[in-house]
């Protein structure tokens, strides 16, 4: 039997695997670039939307709202009573600020909380100072049986544990151990008196300290709240205006190109800004569509082909395949060099992508119903039928024909490159069978 032996097949499979993995790496690089570009387009679109909304609604006044409604037809701007909402918030903030300013723990905050000299702070410092030596005694007396000894009256006449019980000797041992830590006391009775006094005094101090710290915390919280509400009052106008502009922008997003044609006819500056926003929305959609069709889908196919090649490498490496041959015709088909096809496909993608991404002639758009951004962006020279938005447009306007702008500065060489080798699109680039 003629054909190619298993060594040669294995070598070619490894080369094919390297080629496919290299192509995946190229597509991943382009996908990473695309992700970065989409971020840039999103930022530009956000800026365009904010600028348009700000131009259409420059202030939150009855006159400005009426003007914005006239320009856009967006009646909810008028109906939502945005000015009343702003004034309600202003009244709430002012009322609460008045309450806080009348509160002694806010009003006298410096007197109460100034470091070292505030009355609350000073009292805390003094109590901490008095408490320190007591805490030292209490800490030194820490013992698992200490609290029990104090409770059962060990060292006093009240101690009534029978001497036949183990606990009697446990108390005895613990009492001796504690007494050894305080040698100045001759008996546990004397030590007990100091421990009880220390415990009770610490409890009094701790209760007072908790009260003082609560007062300080309340005063701090009031000061914090006062600051937040003051800031909120200072930003009130800007925040409500921005919220209204966002509402308007949301509405503008939902509109088609021709929806504002009549309303913006008398305001060419706004019309250009509107076209810019709509053009950026279309640009984003096209770039995503291009990446989906020409990067993500081929990448999935490449990944499947890589899996198959890996399986075949294992298969052709088995001992029983040592004497197997791959027929010449099958070998040629299987291992034909596809690197040129991959390269052309990438170049076509990059040229189309760049054409759309670099487009900046938004002002040349028409506010008419049968306007297709793809035509303007590519001067009608690049095929966009694989994009859902373009397909949908042609289903609505089957007779649409784009008339090129005679003054267009469109790069013909780029278009030629982007549309060349169309014949290779139909056949699979990934035939790893």
């Amino acid at each position, binding site marked *: 039997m003629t054909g190619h032996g298993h060594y040669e097949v294995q070598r070619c499979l490894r080369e094919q695997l390297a080629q496919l993995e290299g192509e995946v790496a190229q597509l991943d690089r382009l996908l990473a670039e695309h992700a970065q570009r989409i971020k840039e387009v999103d930022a530009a679109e956000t800026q365009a939307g904010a600028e348009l909304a700000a131009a259409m609604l420059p202030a939150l006044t009855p006159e400005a709202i009426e003007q914005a409604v006239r320009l856009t037809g967006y009646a909810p701007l008028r109906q939502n009573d945005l000015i009343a909402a702003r004034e309600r918030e202003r009244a709430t903030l002012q009322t609460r600020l008045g309450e806080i300013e009348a509160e002694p723990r806010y009003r006298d905050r410096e007197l109460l909380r100034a470091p070292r000299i505030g009355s609350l702070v000073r009292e805390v410092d003094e109590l901490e100072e008095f408490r320190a030596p007591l805490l030292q005694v209490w800490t030194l007396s820490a013992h698992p049986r200490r609290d029990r000894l104090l409770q059962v009256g060990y060292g006093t006449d009240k101690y009534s544990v*029978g*001497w*036949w*019980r*183990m*606990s009697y*000797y*446990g108390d*005895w*041992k613990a009492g001796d151990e504690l007494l050894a830590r305080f040698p100045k006391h001759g008996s546990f009775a004397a030590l007990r008196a100091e421990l009880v006094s220390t415990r009770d005094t610490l409890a009094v101090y701790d209760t007072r300290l908790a009260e003082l710290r609560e007062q300080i915390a309340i005063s701090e919280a009031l000061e914090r709240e006062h600051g937040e509400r003051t800031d909120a009052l200072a930003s009130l106008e800007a925040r409500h205006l921005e919220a209204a502009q966002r509402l308007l922008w949301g509405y503008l997003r939902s509109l088609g190109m021709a929806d504002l044609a009549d309303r913006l006819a008398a305001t060419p500056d706004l019309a250009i800004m509107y076209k810019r926003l709509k053009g950026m929305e279309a640009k984003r959609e096209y770039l995503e569509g291009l990446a989906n069709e020409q990067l993500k889908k081929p990448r999935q196919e490449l990944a499947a082909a890589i899996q198959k090649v890996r399986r075949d490498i294992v298969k052709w490496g088995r001992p029983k395949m040592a004497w197997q041959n791959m027929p010449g015709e099958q070998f040629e088909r299987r291992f034909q060099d596809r690197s040129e096809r991959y390269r052309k496909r990438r170049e076509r993608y990059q040229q189309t992508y760049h054409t759309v991404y670099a487009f900046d002639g938004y002002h040349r758009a028409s506010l008419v119903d049968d306007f297709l951004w793809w035509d303007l962006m590519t001067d009608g020279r690049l095929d966009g039928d694989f994009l859902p938005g373009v397909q949908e447009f042609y289903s609505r306007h089957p007779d649409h024909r784009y008339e090129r702008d005679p003054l267009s500065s469109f790069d013909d060489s780029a278009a030629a490159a982007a549309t060349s080798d169309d014949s290779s699109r139909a056949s699979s680039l990934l035939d790893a069978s």
Partner: protein
Amino acid sequence: MLERCFSAAGFHIEHGFKLVGAGFEVVLDGYDPAHRVGYEYLTTEAGDRVELTPAVIAALEAAIERGDFHLLLIDELEVADEAELELAAQRFIARLPRP
């Protein structure tokens, strides 16, 4: 260890001695019937908490207070280590009349 301490002090300890009195009938871990001295080590594992109910303990303690006999009652939960137990036994024995 308990038996060693009591024996060293001159007591003749018998194991499993049955002690009967008003309100109690218990089998002690160690007891010298001649000197009426002994000990009972209460453990859950040995089922002592079933036999030595609070009522039985109360009856035993009443008899100890009357001077009928001397018993060291040890709850396993109160013993941290062997040294502590030995110290307790020595101190208990020191309070007893010499055999």
